[in-house]
């Protein structure tokens, strides 16, 4: 597949702290690339570098073989950006907002009106086009936030957590719209905290942590990473006296996490060790309330790769 953006060995620091370390990846035409990571992973910094707004100290950022910063204004014309926060003029109508932001990309006259109509239709806001944005619901504002970014029909759409704090109906509308845009040939770069969104729309995933890429690939490939393991959730009365080292001595146990009333263990599927795991609880006189075994999800992949929950 054709790479339309290419980042190689990128390094970025804020003051003395390095926030992006040796970052390399390509963005391919027509894909929905989801970037995942806990807070502080470097996702927003990466997105801001991709928008051309943020500079970097070292490395290379190219588009179609050319250095982006040598042709920044031309490059920006090809982008549509949906910022994380609602970025709209509240005192103006949806139509005025879309027309203004689209005009910054050079649209004027009939072309501007047509694009504005299409964007309003896309966002499902045609009927309320003349209403002031301040009268809109949160979900409508989120949809308009996206409409303002696509009216000029960009080649690449970058969305930074576009569904934060909205109702399920608006979220579904946004996700199906994003898939529709991709079907029309747009390339999408998407960050989110919601794993189910990634499961639904991504064609490729990058997982970041500590300014680095810890894994990348299609969701099936990422699941393969941890597919050789199974995850036990064991609910107990208490976990006093239980030492995780006792579990690590058991053959096949790869990862242990102990909280107040739950123990999570990742063990190799090829080793039958549940009896030995249970015996640790018996020896410590801890009553087991329930045991469940989880199949591999992206959430599991993420947890195993970063050691953190996505909402950390």
């Amino acid at each position, binding site marked *: 597949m054709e790479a339309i953006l290419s980042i190689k060995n990128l390094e970025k620091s804020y003051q003395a702290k390095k926030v992006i370390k040796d970052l390399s990846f390509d963005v391919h035409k027509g894909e929905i690339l989801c970037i995942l990571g806990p807070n502080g992973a470097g996702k927003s910094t990466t997105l801001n570098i991709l928008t051309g707004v943020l500079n970097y100290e070292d490395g290379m950022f190219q588009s179609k073989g050319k250095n982006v910063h040598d042709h920044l*204004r*031309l490059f920006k014309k090809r982008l549509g950006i949906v*910022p994380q926060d609602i970025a709209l003029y509240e005192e103006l109508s949806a139509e005025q907002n879309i027309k203004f932001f689209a005009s*910054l990309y050079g649209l004027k006259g009939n072309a501007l009106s047509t694009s504005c109509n299409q964007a309003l239709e896309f966002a499902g806001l045609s009927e309320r086009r003349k209403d002031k944005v301040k009268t809109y619901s949160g979900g409508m504002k989120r949809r308009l936030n996206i409409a303002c970014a696509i009216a000029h029909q960009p080649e690449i759409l970058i969305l930074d957590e576009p569904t934060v704090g909205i109702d399920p109906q608006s979220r579904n509308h946004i996700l199906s719209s994003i898939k529709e845009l991709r079907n029309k040939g747009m390339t999408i770069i998407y960050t989110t905290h919601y794993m189910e969104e990634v499961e639904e729309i991504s064609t490729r995933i990058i997982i970041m942590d500590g300014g680095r890429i810890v894994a990348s690939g299609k969701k099936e490939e990422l699941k393969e990473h941890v597919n050789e393991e199974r995850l036990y959730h064991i609910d107990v009365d208490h976990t006093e006296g239980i030492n995780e080292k006792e579990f690590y001595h058991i053959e096949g146990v790869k990862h242990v996490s102990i909280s107040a009333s739950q123990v999570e263990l990742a063990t190799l599927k090829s080793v039958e060790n549940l009896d030995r795991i249970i015996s640790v609880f018996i020896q410590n006189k801890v009553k087991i309330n329930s045991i469940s075994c989880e199949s591999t999800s992206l959430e599991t992949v993420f947890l195993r790769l970063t050691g953190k929950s996505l909402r950390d």
Partner: protein
Amino acid sequence: MYQFRRILKMDLVNLFTNPMWLFYTTAFPFALTLIFGFLAKGSYSDNITSYDFYGITTMIYSALNAGTLAANSFMEKDIKGPNMRLIYAPVPSFAIYFPKIIATVIFTTVCYTAVALLLRVTVHVNFGETNTVYLWLLMILVEIFAASFSVMLCCVLKTEAAVNQILSFAITLMTLLGGVFFPVDGLGKAVTAVSNLSPVKWVALSAFQIIYDGKFTLLLPACIILAVVSVICILFSTKFFKTEDFV
């Protein structure tokens, strides 16, 4: 230039549709002149009434306050979000901050002209009769200076709160020293000497010279100094404005 015009138009719309800013640039200077003029009524002659004096000085004070408006139109909480889209858009950097200066000057000029007309009709403030155009030239240059200085501070400091604090302190100090609200010449030689450092004093002197003496000896140097300092502020803005400071 098309994008520049669109951004300028949007900045003007934002200013003219904000009721708070409209109040601040119309009702506030009008009321301030009436209150000060009424309180000081007995201290002025019939030739130059208290309303004449405070009509002019309030205009100068208000023109300086254009700086606060420019900072607001650049970084005010509700405006900053949509303004951020300008940073992502393929527009040159100067098209982001420069229209803020022009829009502020247009907005304040329109509002203060309306206030001046109202003061002329209600309390007969003398704005220089046939020389009004020169007085307004001076006021517009003060507005340009204040807006440019403020936008430069925004580019350097990156926060509206810090800029407003500095502007508020600087404007108050300059206007007090400049004798805008009460004469400072009677407070001793030292205060008089310090007051000579306030540019507001020279602007006020120039304004009164235009109105009552029909002379323009202070106008040209005042205009040149204001224009040169404004250009320097804009050049500094160009140097210090970095898109990455706003994401």
